[in-house]
């Protein structure tokens, strides 16, 4: 019987779990742990087949959900013929392996589950908070549910995805920068009141 190695989040060693929660809060941040991430590339000439097979979005800057085989996932376009897939089911690499098998010769898959943390930012002041570091226009006329973009926030590379109209955003932040980014978020959100939690998907 081998003992499993213990997995931790890049934010485990930050003050994420012990900040004082304010009673009224305009910003809510969730560290969403246990999601699988896979970066997908279409092979030359196989883009259409791949798109059909996994129900991928073809419009830049807009995500789409796929319900079905090999697993339910959300796809965010990253670049021409390139997507980031997000799925439930942990960071053991099984999602990437399943996708790799499922698409066969249509494309290539890079396992990325550990490369990023996913911070869900919501609350009445979420947009105002992000505008302190994000150059993109987050106004509903410019960006709605399902919009996604690769950008920098507070000088850190972030893949941003708008989850709902309220608005709520998922920010995919490189693991090495996670603690720095969280500290920026905490300082910048102070004026709105901040609540945070860990969610294990």
């Amino acid at each position, binding site marked *: 019987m081998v003992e499993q190695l213990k997995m*931790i989040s890049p934010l485990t060693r930050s003050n994420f779990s012990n900040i004082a929660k304010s009673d009224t809060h305009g910003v809510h941040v969730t560290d969403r742990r246990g999601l699988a991430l896979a970066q997908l590339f279409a092979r030359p000439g196989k883009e259409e087949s791949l798109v059909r097979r996994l129900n991928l979005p073809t419009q830049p800057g807009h995500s789409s959900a796929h319900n079905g085989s090999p697993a339910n996932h959300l796809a965010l376009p990253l670049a021409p013929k390139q997507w980031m897939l997000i799925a439930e089911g942990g960071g053991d690499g099984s999602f990437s392996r399943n996708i790799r098998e499922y698409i066969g010769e249509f494309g290539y898959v890079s396992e990325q589950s550990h490369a990023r943390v996913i911070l869900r930012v919501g609350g009445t002041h979420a947009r105002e908070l992000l505008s302190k570091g994000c150059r993109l226009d987050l106004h509903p006329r410019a960006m709605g549910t399902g919009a996604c973009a690769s950008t920098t926030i507070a000088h850190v590379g972030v893949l941003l995805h708008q989850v709902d109209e309220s608005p709520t955003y998922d920010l995919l932040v490189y693991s090495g920068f996670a603690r720095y980014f969280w500290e920026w978020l905490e300082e910048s959100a102070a004026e709105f009141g901040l609540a945070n939690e860990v969610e294990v998907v």
Partner: protein
Amino acid sequence: MKRLIFLKTPEMRTHKQLYRLDTGGYIQRDKPLRFRFDGRSYTGFEGDTLASALLANGKHLVGRSFKYHRPRGILTASSEEPNALVELRKGAFREPNTRATMVELFEGLAAKSQNRFPSLSFDILAINQLFSRFMGAGFYYKTFMWPPSFWETVYEKLIRRAAGLGRAATLPDPDRYEHAHLHCDVLVIGGGAAGLAAALSAGHSGARVVLAEEMPHLGGSLSRADIIDGVPADEWIRKTRQALEALPETQVKTRFCVFGYYDNNTLAAIERVGDHLAATPEHLPRQRLHTIRARKVIFATGALERPVVFDNNDVPGVMLSSAVRHYIEHFAVAPGKSIAIATNNDDAYRTAFALLDAGINVPVIADARLAPSALSQQAEKLGIRIQHAMLPQRAHGIHRVNALSLQRPDGVFAERIQCDCIGVSGGYSPNVSLISQRGDRPRWREDILAFVPEMNETESTSCAGACRGVFDLNACLRDGFEMGERAAKDLGFDIDTQPAPTAPAQETDAIQPLWHCPGKGKSFVDFQNDVTADDIHLANREGYSSVEHLKRYTTLGMATDQGRTSNVNGLAILALAQGKDIPEIGTTRYRPPAVPVAIGAFAGHERGKNFQPVRRTAMHACHEKLGAVFVEAGQWMRPRYYPKPGEDMDAAIWREAKFVRESVGVCDVSTLGRIELFGEDAAEFLNRLYINGWSKLAVGKARYGLMLREDGAVFDDGTTSRLDTNHFLMTTTTANAAAVLAHMEKYAQTVWSDLDVHFCSVTEQWCGVSVAGPRARETLKSAFKDAVNLSNEALPFMGVREFVWNGTIARVFRISFSGELAYEVNVPWGYGEAMWERIMDAGRAFKITPYGTEALGVLRIEKGHVAGGELDGRTTATDMGFGSMLSSKKPFIGLPLSKREGMSDANRPSLVGVRPTDHEQRLRGGAHFVTDIANKGRIESLGWISSVADSPAVGCWIGLGYIQGGHNRIGEKVTAWYPLKDEMIEVEICDPVFVDPKGERLHG
């Protein structure tokens, strides 16, 4: 019917605000505030500025001038104030040169006057005035000529002490600043009549509108007497604000100053979040710097009144006529009890009416114009004494005006009027400082004697109201409203058909030039830089006849106010001196920032520990627990060494390096760049990137690769492994990871887009440790148990295996930087700590030692491996001894230019090892190899030392370096010269591989 003036009730009198009117203004009389100026205690009210509160206490003298240390008072009521600069707050919070007119009063505010010693009323350096005839324009350059060496050592220091503005705090700025990004359809800059009207019409269309106003309140220069849409201006401003704030997409921003206009309608603004508070609350920044991206910009920046240039016009109590009116109407403060007025236009009459209304005596209005105007006749009917064709001659008084002499236009004295304040008006100049940042030079309009924006409208900007020379209130409202409508319409919004706000017609007669009144004394043009009319004449006589030369020679308009009250007067005086028209003289341009902005605001969050993002490895907490001292490697934090109690850095490095060779050590190598490549053409892509070949690399094997830049110099190196036929994992140096990825993207996207190759960074998907030393295999066997076979047969040198370790996918690479038997182990990021702990546990039997970047450096120098010091961007593959790696079977990036004459010169310095002949001596990185210094008198460099280490394995300092002749010099003794410490030692050139040249340890 006149109202009673000055505070009457006993309760009010205890505040001693002797110049406060008993009604009116926007101050809150039930909220008195105490404040201190130069140590004395005063009171004001909530809603006051420091300037209005000082005036309410009869205090006009607030500062000393820049050069002559003349007593100075408050000239304006807003942002362009040149004189009333004070020092605010204490200690680290000390802020010099704060404009008293912009400081909102708070309880306990403490301000100090500047540029005086020992006190404001008695300033020793006021003696400069006695010598002022020697201190005209350019006097520094004329006076402090000899000896030249004294300029930097003596003169400059003396001048800087005597002249200049306030004292900056020398402590770190304790305030917090923030950045923010703002997007909108229409940005309206200025919340006066035109700006409000523009925001109204644009806002009603549903466009996203931001109205930016620098002051804490809206309304600009609207007067209490103005009527808009049938109601008093106050009421209209309040209603308009409500209407704007009710629009869901319109934002009204006050204390929000737009100071820069940049390309493509990008603008910068500073928001004063905490400046008006005694202390900024912890959860708020003091100021916020906004970057604004607007589709349309409407400038409604208004106009600024010009002072009148006459003898002694800088005595405290001489104030702009519009400012006099503003202090009365806004703050219920009378700048004097008897206020004389000097003007060349109609606007000053409105001030006179406000004064009469407040019951303040107006002894005379001196109007430079020959004929009566409609307004002057109206004033006369109200009983004011009007003197036409009359100019101010001299203001009398030292610390405060006590009289005004008048003269005829020909310079003949007319009379002396007793007064304690003089309201002056030289006409209005559109405030184009921001507008001209679009790149245009303002255009002169003779009818209003002012520069207006050259282009009223561009594709993405427009100007509305007084800032483009529209001075009539009704016209301003209509102009703003139309510009707002037009902007919204251009952007595709539907505009509703509601009418523009209207105001009763105002009758205004023409202005008359009044640039310089005859006089014998000092007539100031630029108050902040102490430039007089005589200085301008002098500069012109000395040949500085171009406006740009005039500016630099006299410093006219070069102070922090960028000459907003002085430029036009200065140009006009220069034009008069040359007998030219003003448009022929031209005007200087403005640059951002239009108002002074604290440096801290530009830095924002990015200071101290947040200067740049910090990148931590998965095992950061493990290193912290072991007491590691960290070093920044790019943005990464890497353990530099792990000192034991009582151990210094050198001892720790020595111990760590020694232990790796003797037993086993572990080092965090997560920071190396990792790039995963896929595709049928991935091997071909690598062939083109690297100097060596990749097609024949077997699956499960790694190979060292070197890549060049296009110019033939070495770019980066690392090992790349073949995980599957069409699947590679490349590693790069920590420093170059991003640059290498960008380099690859460029070629894959633009040059070889036909290749089936795809890649992405997996640097943070994985984390890695290097386990090195004779006991490395035993350590890992104990850690991995049966998960993978590490025997020499199963995993030879440069072998790679993927396996499952305790439920987690892992990779082991048999590669070595240290020259020892070594393995690099990778697991996904989240298992980094667990891996570290397991390996430390497994290695305990061998006293496993964690080692940092310093020991890593020692080990690789001992083995003769190149790194940062050798890959300095100037060296070639052949220089490094990798000439044999250069493939002749395929082209690769950098190949053509690597064959250039200079790059392939046989005499280029090439890689060697070096050690001191005397083993007690230390080597220095950066030292040069030189020959025969004593004889030649001239030093010739043969090369340099690129890396050094105090080697436990060799027992003395060793180094790598480049020297002409390279290998052929092995055994030779040369001199290493280190000029920074003036050290010269004899060294021996040797083979760069100091340890295990046969590679027996590596393959063991």
